[in-house]
């Protein structure tokens, strides 16, 4: 078996006195494609946050809100994925005068999420689905091996979402994605982890599961 990429043991978290994660143990190995599932409020976003904080140097993050800088261009928003690996001077220069190589590299990433014509658009002017794809592109451009996403395709239709998930899988070794679309999760993930009220209640290979098996944990309680 591959070595672990992420290992959480007895991870707990609480907000304002309310416990949202109760001693979660979770090990994710390199190369795994993990879908985190569960009702809203189950603790997925908190767990995503813990995973990101666990190995920040290896994680490319797609946060739940697209978290774009609306006043900057799509190019600059995607370029931000690698700010930490460039000199400050280069970054400052790029704000006003981007280098050809950077423009080309970002354009290539944007093409993968279907946004190549929006390189110079203002991020704030894009639709919600487009903004989410910019956020994904930023993580793809970041390029770190573990891609962690909190509902990264929630604003896309199933077909677009599938294409974007496939792109993520193509270049990132390990995927940890909170998803709510059962069909997408079963199709693109190798392992399904279900959270309920701050505890892991199901952890199984996707091939062993189907929509019916996940329904009790996932769909509305009614």
């Amino acid at each position, binding site marked *: 078996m591959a070595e672990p990429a992420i290992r959480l043991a007895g991870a707990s978290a609480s907000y304002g006195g309310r416990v949202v994660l109760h001693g979660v143990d979770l090990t994710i190995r390199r190369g795994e494609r993990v879908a985190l599932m569960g009702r809203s409020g189950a603790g997925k976003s908190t767990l995503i*946050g813990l995973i*990101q*904080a666990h190995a*920040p140097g290896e*994680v*490319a*993050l797609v*946060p739940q*809100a697209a*978290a774009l*800088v*609306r*006043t*900057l*261009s*799509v*190019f*600059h928003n995607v370029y*931000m994925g690698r*700010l*930490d690996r460039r000199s*400050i001077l280069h*970054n*400052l220069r790029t*704000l*006003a*005068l*981007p280098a050809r190589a950077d*423009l080309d590299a970002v354009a290539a990433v944007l093409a993968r999420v279907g946004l190549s014509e929006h390189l*110079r*658009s*203002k*991020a704030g002017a894009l639709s919600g689905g487009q903004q989410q794809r910019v956020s994904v592109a930023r993580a793809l451009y*970041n390029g770190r091996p573990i891609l962690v996403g909190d509902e990264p395709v929630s604003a896309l239709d199933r077909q677009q979402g599938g294409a974007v998930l496939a792109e993520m899988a193509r270049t990132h070794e390990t995927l940890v994605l909170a998803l709510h679309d059962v069909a997408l999760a079963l199709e693109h993930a190798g392992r399904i982890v279900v959270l309920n009220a701050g505890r892991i209640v199901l952890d199984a290979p996707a091939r062993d599961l189907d929509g019916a098996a996940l329904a009790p944990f996932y769909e509305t309680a009614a």
Partner: protein
Amino acid sequence: MSALRLPRPGYAALSRWFLAGALAALLVADLHVASLNPWADLRRLLGGLVRPDFLSVEGWSVVYTVAFAVLGVGLGAGAGFLLAIPFARSRTVRGVCAFLRAIHELFWALLLMQVFGLSATTGILAIALPYAGICAKVYSEIIDEADLSALRVLPAGTGAVSAFLYARLPDVAASFRHYTLYRFECGMRSTLVLGFIGLPTMGFHLESAFRQGRYGEAAALLLVFYALIGSRRLWVRGATLPVLALASLLALPETVGATDVGASLVRFLTHDIVPAPLRNADVLDLAALARLWAWFRPILTDQVLPGAGQTLVLAQIALVATAIGALALFPLTARRFSGRLGRPAGRLLLVVVRSTPEYMLAYVALQLLGPSMLPAILALAIHNAGIVGFLLGRHADDLAYRADAPTGLNLYAYETVPRLYGQFLAYLLYRWEIILRESAIFGILGVATLGFYVDAAISELRLDVAAVLILATALMAIGIDALSRALRRALRIDTLPTRLSAPLPGATSP
């Protein structure tokens, strides 16, 4: 130059215009450092500042400063509240308020002094008149922005007063309180500055101390003033207000020698500020009109136009310098940049900077650097950058960064500044009018802006000329205010908070 095509044309274009305007203004500005040895003076100044001489502080001047501010702001805010009610409906009320606030409190004081002499009335009205205009506008904005949902569900037939008390006032009361407290802080600064022209506030002694180089006394006065401003939340409260107001009334300085107010007022209105050629002349007399034009033309060409030009030049440079200063200073007060220990220190610095009246900064800089535009630019930029930087710092702390956001300069350049830029422009456009009014006033200190000519006219006892010049200043301020509002609307930043007192979302209010 395709790479230079910035992705936010509105903001970027505006910034470029303003920058280009400031660079052009720099070409014609007088930036000569006349003092050959500012360092010796500066060293003596700093030497005095580290050894404040508290025993020399005239205690009554502190009391008068507070009393003038309490009564002036109280009267202004009260009148502003009454004017705010018809403000949105009445063009006349809006015009009157715009006029009241377009004239700087120092100019008001110079005019009022003609009638009321060096008296408490002059000091209080000089604050109350412009503040009534400002408060009316802002209170009216607060009422407009208020949540009206509660008003709509009131039973039909609810009386106007009941409706106001139940469904409106509770919603706006907190904003009113915040704004009025902020105005009080401004009122303290204004009162201090009134001392520079002779009213018996702390500014009177501060001016003497600076002029004669008694820097220990100056430092003590300033420290007392900072302490008053810094502790205002402790002693200006709902419960203390009646006591403060009554105590202020009782503590007002006795006017030495009574002016004959009635006669002075009549003389002022019917003689002094009436253009010289029209005095004792029939209004419809054509010859008098010709003389009026002959009188007015040189004032326009030799004083109003050059003065207005210099005022604009100074305001433009100061505005852009403020912008640069604010961008450089705000990280000092933002958690992500200055850290847990640095932030309180940064805040203290900016509170001190913003509590120092810009007129006083300019006065001191003038003593050190000699008479040119440089001291005025420095004073305006330091004071306003302190204010805008402080506010931007608070906004920066409210930003929701993503978990993997960069740090340091990368965070600053890619996340923080781009996100704050609209807010930043909104504040600057809002300060523009204020900077312009101050630029005009700095003429009294020797920079050739409109105030320079006002000072000359008053020295020559030509109050009619002074009135024309003050009117020109007011018209400029009103014009800049309108332009600023139009720009804010065009950039769609007119809904962002610009009231310097506005409680920010997420900020805890006391």
